[in-house]
């Protein structure tokens, strides 16, 4: 199929609808947020339109740098863990029968119907001392007495991986299902073991998909604000938690907006960097 460059205005019309949606649901809200981030905060009330950089200045401290650093680290870790678990899982899933695949996918989709609140409370019960899994370990003779597994960093990580894993699998699934089987057959014919073929053939062939999935999970995890509160200590709170505090509890919209703009810019920069590195590697 040959693609012709669009010539007349009419050729561009299919772009109108997505373009309009992008403007309405992204450009307008995001511009509003940027504008508000420069407004002047009135501590006794709300804010007045103005152009001040106080909100950004307040953010530039080691304290907020630490929180931002932690949030980014957590999101990267969740993304890496999710893809490391989901990629082999999805690969093996595509080798099952059609029926088994459907059942698994329906199961995964149903996990998506759980809200963050339910996931948070379920895991907090599971990790608790009074009703948690350690009671099971005690009953099995693996432990002496039940202990609380939260609030810990591990609990936060587990909750967030659980929440993001179905998305990861659903994003990876189409690419893996469409993977040309002859690639693997060739590898096997040339004497590669299934494990070797997976790592040396399947993984490199899908490198772009993997990078795209990592980015998606990273962005998804960056917005999490409930699970770190329910499963972690204050030092595990992400920047999103502090943004919520400012917006909801302190009604300091300008500062909340400035923090959010900062978070968006940093994550866009990271995503850009990842793509840049990926492109350079591909070019070699």
């Amino acid at each position, binding site marked *: 199929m040959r693609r012709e460059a669009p010539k007349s205005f009419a050729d561009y019309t299919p772009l109108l609808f997505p373009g309009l949606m992008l403007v309405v649901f992204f450009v307008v809200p995001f511009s509003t947020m940027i504008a508000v981030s420069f407004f002047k905060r009135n*501590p*006794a009330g709300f804010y007045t339109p103005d152009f001040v950089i106080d909100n950004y200045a307040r953010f530039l401290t080691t304290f907020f740098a630490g929180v931002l650093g932690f949030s980014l680290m957590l999101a990267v870790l969740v993304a890496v863990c999710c893809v490391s678990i989901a990629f082999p899982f999805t690969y093996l899933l595509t080798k099952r029968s059609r029926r088994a695949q459907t059942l698994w996918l329906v199961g995964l989709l149903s996990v998506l119907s759980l809200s963050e609140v339910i996931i948070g409370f379920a895991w907090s019960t599971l990790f608790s001392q009074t009703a948690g899994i350690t009671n099971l370990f005690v009953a099995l003779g693996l432990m002496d007495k039940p202990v609380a597994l939260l609030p810990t960093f591990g609990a936060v990580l587990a909750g967030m991986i659980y929440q993001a894993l179905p998305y990861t699998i659903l994003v990876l699934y189409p690419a893996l299902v469409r993977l040309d089987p002859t690639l693997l057959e060739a590898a096997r014919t040339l004497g590669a073991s299934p494990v070797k073929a997976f790592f040396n053939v399947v993984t490199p062939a899908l490198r772009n998909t993997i990078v795209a999935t990592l980015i998606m999970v990273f962005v998804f995890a960056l917005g999490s604000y409930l699970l770190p*509160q329910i499963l972690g200590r204050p*030092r595990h709170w992400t920047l999103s938690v502090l943004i919520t505090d400012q917006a*909801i*509890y302190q*009604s300091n919209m300008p500062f909340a907006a400035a923090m959010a703009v900062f978070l968006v810019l940093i994550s866009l920069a990271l995503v850009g960097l990842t793509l840049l590195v990926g492109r350079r590697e591909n070019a070699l």
Partner: protein
Amino acid sequence: MNRLISTQVSRRSVLGAGLATAGVLAMPSILRAQDKSLKVGVYGGYFKKSFDEHVFPDFTKATGIAVESVAEPTGEAWLVQLEQAAKAGQAPADLSMMSQTSTLKGQSTELWTPLDTSKFKHYGDLLPRFINKYPDGRVAGIGAVAWWITLVSNTDVYKEAPTSWAAFWDKANEDKLGLLALASNSFLLEVTAKTFMGGTNALDTEEGLNKAFEKLAEVKPNVRLWYRDEAQFEQALKSGEIPMGQYYHDVTGLAIADGFHVRTTFPKEGGIQDSGNWVLSRASTKVDEAHAFIDYMSQPSMQGVMSRKVGTTPTLKKEVLDLTPAEFASVSSDIEPIIPRYDLYTSKADWINQKWTELIVG
């Protein structure tokens, strides 16, 4: 719209014309224009359930004004929503229950319609701390409900009731406490000042505040959960997972009545008394209905009903109430309360918030 109906055309002819005009029928406000109604925002969950059950039906019976209750979130989310809506001329609720800090913040943008106190028969019986005034003396809000934050503990874990807020600082309680996560809803600075610094006046100066923060930092190792969401702590308190902390006296009372092994204690330094006001959004047109509602709620008999059925503390003088001494004791205490320094959360809001966040996160 009321005027349109009463002066130019009869209600019947509007209805007749409406049959031909789908657009008119799509506006139910016209069809119901003659019914008196009021949208009242109350804190979602327990308060809303109690008001729907014990308050609103009787009010409608007594006055003929229908009430639509709106569940509002605690914190300042509702204030922000009301403010945004008022800018657009909308009122998601006419009257709302509003915390003291939020009432003060709303004052700064004239968000609240000043109330005409001559319409409240029992205005003179209200305790002065339950009348919220603009700086120029106009009344911005009238006490709606008052409640206590007390020292709560699990009776299985603590056989003896703690007697002082100082228990939070006890090294024996390491990793055992659940405290509210914000300076402006936990009022722990006030607790620190009253317990160790002779009273909340110690917070008048920045030096005093710094001292209170320093003292409060010693509590950190004992805190297992800094909660924003009540359910999070209540569950853990009942199960003994987090056996001590600060919590609402009324809700803890309900948990005791349900047989859970918890207790609520008024420490010798006093419980924290917080309260909410009835405030009227400036975008609301239901000024008369709103006054009728506040008047109804401020009657001694209604305050009695609230104390007995909802467990809130009366906003009126003790003398005019019909509560028995035992009933009064269950919703209040003769120990002098710790009254939060609401002024700090408007005048020094950002400074305190920043110090506080660094204290608990850092």
